[in-house]
């Protein structure tokens, strides 16, 4: 196995960034038919800033193709609420761009699934926030577990090849990750666990939903024993050395990725869709120019978490997720408060495949 990238190339990306993002997160609409309590994009609805029309979407995809961006991760809102969304996917594929869609799964029906199956591979990521209705529905709304599961069952019945079930790990569902993984396997889906952050709607539910230190420590051990579980680089500050080869060892915002809001505003990442990090708008400036030389992106690339330099895990996480610290303190460059060292002191890390303990109600 070739040596890992992390210690050799990624740290230099701050001084010599890639010519273009590897992938772009594009929140294609702010519209959504659910009102999830932790929604990252909850602010999109309240801001009502509009969204790019189809021609503007095509123009952006032309630019992404010119930049040779490999992959677009579509989110929202609920992308399938856009009437022209399949057309947008087609146009991305026409340019050779790989697509991934984050969906709440409630709009998946036979017609839509068959249409997706006829396209170039579209990676589907279906959000479900618990292994049972009692947990999921508290977060995503009453009755949603059954509705989402119906969509998942349809994907399984149709033999959809590339889909995952995604759970944002919160205090409510952290003890269900093992059951959630088994649920996903039952439907032939991959398991994907994402990090809960205090941005968007998460600002309001942070105190109630953030996992406890014990839960985070158990999650770290669980992930260490399950390398097949996807995390979308959510937990690089938390996971043990055994997952070192599985993804980024630092925040990739403004270096390997960036985010486009429904109205075309550009941010370093979807979790930093805050006016302080607004780098431009694709309706007024080319994304390539924004990525290469906007002041917010250059500042972000130069960000160093000095307080973490002496940590034994610095080469693994480089200070963790800047968004968490920012939304809690409104300051940048602070250590990730949920890094592994914050929840498990050095020398006490158990890297066994332990399933988080279930709490007895």
């Amino acid at each position, binding site marked *: *196995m*070739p*040596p*890992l*990238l*992390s210690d*050799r*190339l*990624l740290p230099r990306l701050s001084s*010599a960034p*890639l*010519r*273009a993002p*590897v*992938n772009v*997160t594009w*929140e294609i609409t702010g519209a959504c038919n659910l009102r999830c309590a932790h929604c*990252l994009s909850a602010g999109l609805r309240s801001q009502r800033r509009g969204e790019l029309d189809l021609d503007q979407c095509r123009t952006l995809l032309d630019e992404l*193709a010119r930049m*040779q961006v*490999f*992959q677009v*991760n*579509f*989110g929202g809102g609920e992308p399938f609420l856009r009437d022209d969304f399949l057309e947008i996917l087609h146009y991305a594929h026409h*340019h*050779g761009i*790989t697509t*991934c869609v*984050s969906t709440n799964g409630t709009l998946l029906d036979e017609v839509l699934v068959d249409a997706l199956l006829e396209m170039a*591979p579209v*990676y589907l*990521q279906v959000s479900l926030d618990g292994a049972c209705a009692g947990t999921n529905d508290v977060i995503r709304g009453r009755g949603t577990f059954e509705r989402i599961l119906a969509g998942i069952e349809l994907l399984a019945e149709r033999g959809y090849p590339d889909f995952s079930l995604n759970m944002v790990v919160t205090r409510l569902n952290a003890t269900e990750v093992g059951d959630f993984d088994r649920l996903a396997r039952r439907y032939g889906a991959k398991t*994907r666990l*994402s990090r809960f952050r205090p941005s968007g709607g998460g600002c309001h539910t942070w105190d109630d939903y953030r996992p406890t230190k014990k839960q985070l420590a158990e999650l770290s051990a669980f992930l260490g024993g399950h390398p097949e579980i*996807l*995390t*979308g*680089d*959510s937990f690089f500050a938390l996971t043990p050395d055994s997952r070192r*080869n*599985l*993804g*980024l060892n630092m925040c990739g915002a403004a270096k390997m*990725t960036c985010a486009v809001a429904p109205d075309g505003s550009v941010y370093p990442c*979807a979790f930093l869709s805050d006016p302080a990090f607004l780098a431009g708008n694709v309706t007024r400036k080319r994304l390539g120019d924004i990525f290469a030389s906007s002041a917010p992106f250059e500042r972000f690339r130069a960000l160093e978490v000095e307080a973490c330099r002496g940590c034994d895990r610095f080469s693994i996480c480089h200070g963790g997720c800047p968004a968490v610290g920012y939304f809690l303190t409104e300051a940048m460059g602070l250590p990730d408060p949920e890094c592994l060292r914050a929840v498990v002191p050095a020398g006490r890390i158990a890297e066994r495949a332990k399933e988080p303990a279930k709490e007895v109600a």
Partner: protein
Amino acid sequence: MASTERAFEVADQASADGAGRAYLVPDWVRVRREDFGLLFYDTRSTRLTFVRSGDRLVAPPFTGSPRFLGVGAGGEGASGEAPAGAGPSGAGRGGAALAHLLEDLVAKGLLVAAAAE
């Protein structure tokens, strides 16, 4: 929303010889130029491979078929047509190292070796 899962590898150079072959980029692979060399992306796995090749390998067009990797002197040979003698024909250790690198990329499914015309 965060990204589809990715993994990262670096393909480095060692020693071997694979002269006389052209290298086709398969339909499922995208490759682009970066300052350090080339960045490969496998659409099937969404895996990235960073190749520190400097100017010795040249990316073909982003899409289209067939796409041949330019091999040899920087800036030469990248096109949609099979370049004559497109293999790593440089003499000595550098050529052998480049050949090994190309074999590594073939083994990863990021290139397909073909006889050069």
